[in-house]
């Protein structure tokens, strides 16, 4: 029933289950599964300490393919189920697997409340900008004007900016990665794991059946250098193989050719600076800016929800509960009938 102390070594292979992986051939979910299976053995914990909790959606089938503990819950509620588990079993490594519909549409409320409360768990948000499982309706991350089964003449819903929303909900860790970059993904999952608090990783995931190529502009080898900005802490914002960079003109980010400016004038990424993080999350609506990938913001100041709650429980813990309960029952005036 309790965690064992001696770590049981395991490999990525050990994480495969006997269930056939049932995503469409070519789906970005495979790459994410692989990356997660890759890093888990490196984290220095036993396999039995990992729990994957998902909602409903293509992405949410993920736990079935991980030979750890797993719970495929109901649509939108994974974060709540995970919160109940993490609070009561704080030593487990809890991962929430969710889609853009699952966590930002029906599950939006649990999403933002989880972020503000900050239990120590990792949310992997598979953002494919579509409802995959229900065969292709626009999602809260689909672009306005999108033509789908439920918006045949174009959606009129302006989308969320998931990382800006997370920041607004007081998230303590936000990062973005892409299915097509295994190394970067793995780095982000590792960072997420080691962050104490709720870590949100948005993963650009290609749904090759209902929304193929949504992120091609960022993932395609030839376009990537100009469209994707890979963040490194304390490093200036550079892209296009160092040819382009970003400076801050007052509060306004501007694109520059690196040859035109001194390297010292560039916008230096600082994961701990919330205003800088905000500015980075806004490289979203404006097409001219490259899309940032990497850890955008981390705050280590906020205590975790599970720590705070367990602290209250431990600090008031009653040694002899049965005895105390008896006293409790008799604590209000009682009387004897003889």
């Amino acid at each position, binding site marked *: 029933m309790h965690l064992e102390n001696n770590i049981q070594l395991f490999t990525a292979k050990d994480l495969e289950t006997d269930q056939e992986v049932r995503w469409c051939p070519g789906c970005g979910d495979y790459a994410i599964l692989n990356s997660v299976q890759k890093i888990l053995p490196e984290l220095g914990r036993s396999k039995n300490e990992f729990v994957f909790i998902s909602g409903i959606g293509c992405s949410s089938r993920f*736990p079935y393919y991980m030979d750890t503990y797993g719970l495929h819950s109901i649509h939108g509620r994974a974060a709540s189920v995970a919160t109940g588990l993490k609070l009561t079993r704080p030593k487990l490594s809890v991962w929430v697997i969710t889609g853009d519909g699952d966590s930002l549409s029906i599950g939006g409320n649990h999403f933002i409340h989880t972020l503000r409360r900050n239990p120590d768990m990792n949310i992997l948000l598979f953002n494919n900008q579509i409802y995959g499982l229900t065969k292709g309706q626009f999602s809260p991350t689909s672009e306005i004007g999108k033509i789908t089964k439920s918006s045949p003449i174009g959606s009129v819903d302006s989308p969320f900016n998931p990382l800006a929303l997370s920041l607004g909900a007081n998230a303590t860790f936000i990062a973005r990665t892409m299915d097509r970059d295994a190394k970067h993904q793995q780095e982000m999952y590792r960072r997420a794991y080691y962050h104490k608090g709720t870590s949100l990783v948005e993963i650009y995931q290609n749904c090759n059946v209902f929304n193929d190529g949504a992120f091609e502009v960022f993932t395609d080898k030839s376009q990537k250098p100009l469209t994707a900005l890979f963040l490194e802490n304390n490093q200036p914002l550079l892209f296009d193989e160092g040819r382009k960079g970003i400076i801050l003109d007052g509060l306004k980010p501007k694109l520059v050719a690196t040859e035109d400016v001194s390297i010292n004038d560039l916008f230096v990424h600082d994961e701990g600076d919330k205003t800088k993080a905000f500015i980075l999350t806004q490289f979203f609506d404006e097409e001219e800016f490259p899309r940032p990938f990497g850890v955008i913001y981390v705050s280590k100041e906020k205590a975790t929800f599970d720590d705070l709650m367990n602290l209250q429980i431990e600090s008031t813990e009653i040694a002899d509960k049965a005895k105390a309960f008896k006293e409790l029952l008799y604590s209000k005036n009682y009387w004897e*009938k003889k």
Partner: protein
Amino acid sequence: MSTHSIIELENVVIKFAGDSGDGVQLTGNQLAETNALFGNDISTFPDFPAEIRAPIGTIPGVSGFQLHFSSQPVLTPGDKYDVLVALNAAALKTNIKQLKPGGILIVNSEGFDSKNLRLAKIEESENPLINGSLDAFKVFQIELTKLTKLAVKPFALGNKDAERCKNMYVLGLVYWLYNRGIDNTIAFLTRQFKKNEVIANANIAALKAGYYYGETTEIFLEKYLVKAADTTKGLYRSINGNQATAFGLLGASIRANLPLFLGTYPITPASDILHELSKHKGYNVYSFQAEDEIAGVCAAIGASYGGSIGVTTSSGPGIALKTEAIGLATMLELPLVICNIQRGGPSTGLPTKTEQADLLQALYGRNGECPIVVIAACSPSNCYEMAYLAVKIALEHTVPVMFLSDGYIANGAEPWLIQDLETMPPILPKYISSNIANAKYQPYLRDENLVRSIAIPGSVGLEHRIGGLEKENITGNISYDPLNHELMVKIRAEKVAMVANTLPLQTFENGNETSKILIIGWGSTYGAITQAVSELQNEGIDVAQIHIKYINPLPKNIGELIQPFDKILVAELNNGQLINLIRANHLKDAKGINKIQGQPFQIIEIKEAIKQAL
């Protein structure tokens, strides 16, 4: 000393009524406690206005507290009052209909000035204190505010604070009238205001002044005595249903040696369970006030999954929101306790009033074939046992259990013969531990009761996946196989049905299979029905009574008990719900006794309905 003669009474029903701000609940509670300590049997019925305070002095602002104390066993707060204490015109107007002819009416005459009459929507000319409409009662008018202020003058309080003591003044008077000491209340006041001695002393002074007012003035010619009741021996305390529910859950957690996790969202009248449990973190109680009811129940499911006791509490609108997740728990076959403290519906309805109209929702309010266990407490103190059993059943049968209570018993109090934890049945959850598992763990392998063994995350070598899709029996793998689905639907139903094997058989509360008529009830109507049936039996009318606590599954012998009867009545505070089960299961032409007024049954209502049906 007192020259008043003392008249012995078997029982008294007294109602305090005043403005929400008048401290009526506290006054009533004090009298109830003092009488209980003295040894009376008691039952209380607090009746507050809608959640927000209405303007002072108006009808919607009236707060009431009804107390029945007796030298005989007491089952309800009583139908009509022997005494009404009305602190203003609105309180009188709302309650006078329930005062027995010849009853004692104590009024604060200052609560009947023009302003108060206007607020109570009474024409000046219709002032009941002068228009003769109260002639049928023994009316005692007291200038309560003036007398109270005089009494607390030495403490130099502000006007408002001084006035606030008037409930203690009137309580003192009532203590005197019913021959009770004031020590218990003095001790209470000292405790309550330990940070403000002046206020404590002023209140005590008012209490004493009221007491002596009875003693020294001659307004009352008699005083009364209600002797101690001859109830079962043992240690008692007073308890209301929500407290009892919280204690039952807590006790079960201690007995099962598992953490208790409450995932909930506040709602009237269930919130007090949250309030109570959140005081007891030291018992390994996690109280999680979630962002909504869905998150509350889902977190409880997560905690159950992790090996704690997942509980969620709510009332009508909140229960409606939880139905999808209850389906998930059913499918996962995890323990879960859902407490529904019913209130008047539909929709937001009458949040502070009582009703039993969520029974069919409890039974059927989920998508798909989704049976769960449904049990109902029948009195404030019975909530303890039933909440405890809810946990026991959930853990031992790996099913969701819906525990039904309602606003009436949740807020009403009665003496409780304290049930020590050692006397409760043991709780044996169905967890599997790593060491025994050499073979592959099969999450949906079942025992003879069809119950699966649960492996808790963290256990070495028992890694597995579960979810809300239909699953293959034994392995738990997702399965779309048609016959497997039918099998699983039947297994889930049978598993719930088999809970009946562990439940007590149903018995008659009154009468037996030869009685002329059978009345069936469930939940909070127990007191009123039982009292009504006893009274009828005393009148020589042979009525049998069954009170059902286990609704799904029903006790195994229920058909047997019902079978002999041609005349069957089902009494419910709804438009007819349990009656559907009785009719459908037993093909008996049962008739309903129904009341849908946000109020409990009166004994007389039941009696008359039975008489008519005979």
